[in-house]
């Protein structure tokens, strides 16, 4: 019995002592010097105290604050008009202070990485193999002996082949970086990492190649490098292709509404870009109305944007364009005026500042296929979305009564009227359809670029370019032109730079239109020849 007591006392004493250290370490975070702070962080992590993770998490999320009046480091949560303070070690409530009376402890990139690495070392022991693998990946290329020891220790127990593969790579890099390792060991390590696309592997191999005196090692490194480079190159081509497809899908989305209003109806609508902008602002409004529903708000935004922009389109047609059919120059000027009015209206209602549209979680980040090839989710979804919109539009035009009427009116206005089609109604609805699709494009573009009054201007020229290049009046032409121009642009860009790539494409289109004024896929038949 007394022994147990003594043991208990010792334990309490020990933890009491650790607590005092922890207090000191936390106070050390108040220092101005980042070196002192780094030391304090390591001290906190080493203490093994259950509060340590809480403190480091708070430090990273800016919830560890300096109470200015009492000059102490405490946990602080933003609440109401100020900070709700808590003791970092006991968790005891310390009351509230004003929002500028406490300030978060500043950390920089170095400290942030230190915390990440410390956390990764801890996560190596996680029960979840995915977490272990992520932790190991984070530590690839790290030279710290403590980290390497942790990795080695983990490797002894690791039973998941994916995780141990990553740890192997990390350890082999360390072996290659160490100048004292024997040649045979080094050669083995080179063999082991030869298939990896990790940038750290490539760098260490290159270093070995230039530094080593042993010809066998030089050869091994060279061979491994060549195979890595060849693989990386293939993935880079795939990357470029994906960039092109993605740019193409953006062009397609922007142009497809115009392909209806300009291509099918023949109206030069300079306000097309502003209809896209209205769609983007609708996305913003939907997110404002459902502040909790960021994850699914886009699903509501798509039909909402279609309705808003479509309605605006019908209004423009009824109030302006209706009077100007057959007078392209006047239509151009009038719709340009409409575009300026819409821009300034948005500036007055929403202010000239850009609005934040939140990207849902499922659209952020990238599908990491390997260290050199990844597909960003937002772009990936937009490629599919553009194709879906295109197919849906084809269905509407080919399979519905409205579609039939639209095609009839676009082929020959007077005959269509003679057959009993209400031209006025069809015109308004067609323009509404094209405008509505511009609105849908706005929802997608809001995920990629700024939502501001100038959003539309950036896309109007590209849209006309795509429609004219593809052949006025031909939706498949628009599709081909959009993807063709997108991929061509991305192929030229790495060689010529972004500015020149745009110029080259523009010059190409001008020359092309000179030779084939009707675009890639001209409409044939008597109606088109007139």
């Amino acid at each position, binding site marked *: 019995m007394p022994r147990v007591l003594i043991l208990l006392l010792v334990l309490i004493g020990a933890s009491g002592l650790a607590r005092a250290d922890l207090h000191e370490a936390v106070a050390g975070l108040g220092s101005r010097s980042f070196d002192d702070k780094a030391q304090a962080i390591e001290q906190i992590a080493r203490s093994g105290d259950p509060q340590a993770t809480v403190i480091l998490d708070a430090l990273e999320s800016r919830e560890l604050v300096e109470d200015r009046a009492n000059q102490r480091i405490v946990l602080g949560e933003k609440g109401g008009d100020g900070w709700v303070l808590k003791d970092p070690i006991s968790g005891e409530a310390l009351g509230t202070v004003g929002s500028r009376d406490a300030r978060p402890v500043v950390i*920089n990139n170095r400290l942030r990485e230190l915390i990440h690495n410390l956390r990764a070392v801890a996560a190596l022991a996680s029960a979840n193999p995915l977490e272990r693998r992520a932790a190991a990946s984070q530590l690839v290329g790290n030279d710290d002996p403590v980290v390497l020891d942790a990795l080695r220790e983990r490797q002894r127990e690791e039973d998941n082949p994916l995780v141990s593969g990553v740890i192997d790579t990390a350890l082999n890099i360390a072996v290659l970086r160490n100048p004292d390792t024997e040649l045979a060991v080094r050669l083995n390590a080179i063999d082991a990492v030869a298939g990896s696309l990790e940038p750290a592997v490539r760098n260490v191999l290159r270093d070995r190649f230039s530094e080593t005196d042993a010809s066998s090692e030089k050869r091994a490194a060279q061979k491994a490098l060549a195979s890595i480079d060849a693989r990386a190159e293939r993935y880079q081509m795939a990357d470029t292709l994906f960039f092109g497809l993605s740019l193409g899908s953006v062009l397609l989305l922007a142009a497809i509404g115009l392909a209806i209003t300009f291509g099918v109806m023949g109206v030069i609508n300079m306000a097309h870009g502003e209809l896209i902008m209205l769609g983007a602002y609708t996305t913003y409004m939907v997110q404002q109305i459902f502040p909790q529903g960021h994850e699914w708000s886009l699903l509501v935004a798509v039909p909402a944007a279609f309705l808003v922009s479509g309605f605006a389109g019908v209004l423009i047609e009824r109030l302006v364009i209706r009077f100007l059919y057959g007078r392209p120059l006047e239509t151009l000027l009038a719709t340009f005026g409409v575009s300026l009015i819409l821009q300034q209206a948005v500036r007055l209602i929403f202010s000239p500042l850009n609005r934040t549209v939140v990207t849902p979680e499922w659209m952020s980040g990238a599908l990491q296929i390997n260290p050199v090839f990844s597909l960003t989710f937002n772009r990936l979804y937009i490629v599919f979305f553009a194709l879906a919109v295109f197919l849906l539009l084809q269905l509407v035009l080919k399979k519905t009564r409205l579609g039939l009427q639209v095609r009839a009116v676009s082929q020959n206005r007077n005959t269509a009227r003679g057959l009993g089609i209400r031209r006025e109604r069809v015109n308004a609805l067609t323009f509404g359809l094209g405008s509505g699709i511009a609105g849908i494009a706005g929802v997608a573009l809001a995920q990629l670029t700024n939502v501001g009054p100038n959003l539309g201007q950036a896309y109007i020229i590209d849209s006309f370019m795509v429609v004219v290049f593809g052949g006025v009046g031909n939706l498949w032409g628009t599709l081909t032109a959009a993807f063709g121009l997108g991929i061509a642009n991305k192929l030229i860009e790495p060689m010529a730079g972004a500015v020149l790539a745009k110029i080259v494409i523009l010059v190409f289109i001008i020359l092309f239109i000179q030779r084939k004024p009707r675009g890639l896929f001209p409409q044939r038949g008597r109606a088109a020849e007139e």
Partner: protein
Amino acid sequence: MKSKINLKRLAAAGLACGSLLYGSAALAADTIKVGVLHSLSGTMAISESTLKDTVLMMIKEQNAKGGVMGKKLEPVVVDPASDWPLFAEKARQLITQDKVDVIFGCWTSVSRKSVLPVVEELNGLLFYPVQYEGEESSKNVFYTGAAPNQQAIPAVDYLLNDLGVKRFVLAGTDYVYPRTTNKILEAYLKAKGIKEDDIMINYTPFGQSDWQSIVSRIKEFGGEGKKTAVVSTINGDANVPFYKELANQGVDASDIPVVAFSVGEQELSGIDTGPLVGHLAAWNYFESVYNDANDKFIEQWHQYIGDDKRVTNDPMEATYIGFNMWVKAVEKAKSTDTDKVAAAMIGMQTPNLTGGTAVMNKNHHLSKPVLIGEIQDDGQFAVVWQTDGLVKGDAWSDYLPGSKDLIADWTKPVMCGNYNSKTKTCGGQAAQ
């Protein structure tokens, strides 16, 4: 009968007209007119409209304190609509028709260059509140934003010395400010021993929205083993898609930090900054700087604009300093005459918002502290580094071959904006 009535009306109208003219003349004598030349529509409205509000707020505050020399300040706001030639026309209108005594205005360098000949011809006074590429000093302009040596050079020093960066990507929008700044930086980096292969320069058009291949090239350039950083002079709207692409392609600030010269609190208020934490910006002011003057300024701004969420930024501080200096200079000169005010401006000191004092130098540029901040997830910056003291604004860069020997000195006996200290000649505009 009919003509009589008409005559009566005419007389009445004439009288009304006359009294109106008299009234406005009387008003003019009692007020000092302040011209505000910032775009309220068009592409630049996003940045410039805030500065218009700042000037109006300062005027309101000054009037509440009793105005200047016992006269009320009267703002004259015009909208040059982001249209560069219109800037020149509106400046001419402000000076000749509205008879303003001072103009606060311009943002882009091209708008300043278009206003420059007008203020020089009409001997007006312009306060320019934005960081710019330097290589200019006019008798009629006071530059209260940063010159390259007060922003770009210290930022690169930080990257070289504190972060140990060995490779640099200089990415910018394709126009005069990034091109000149990058030329200076390239010369500076080479002087510091960075090899040509380790510098990548990339320009993109205005409003670039597709950054996929550029970010992927930066990633590749940075994956070659040496610590790499991006120095960004990307302007305005193009930043949002650039940062979004960085985040999506997983370029982390601890791998490849981006230090930006055109991204401040206001630009960040349009994006979700969660994935950008740790990227850097160099300015002379951050909203997050803690001191009483800044607290007071922020509170005043929130009250004036009626929105607690509106942020403050560096050009607003530059406007604040410029306005306060002008007020003090007018009081010192006891006149609003351009030459007298300009002479009184030199050596003028007013408090800045980072707890120090701004000093106007002989070359019409300020002495300022340089701060480097890291982006936080609330859209603010945390200061991670700052210069020990004030850095004097240098109008003519020491790192460009053409301007190495040039200085600007608007005091006697030099009185010249680009004086060659070797040949002892004045290359441009000189005061008579």
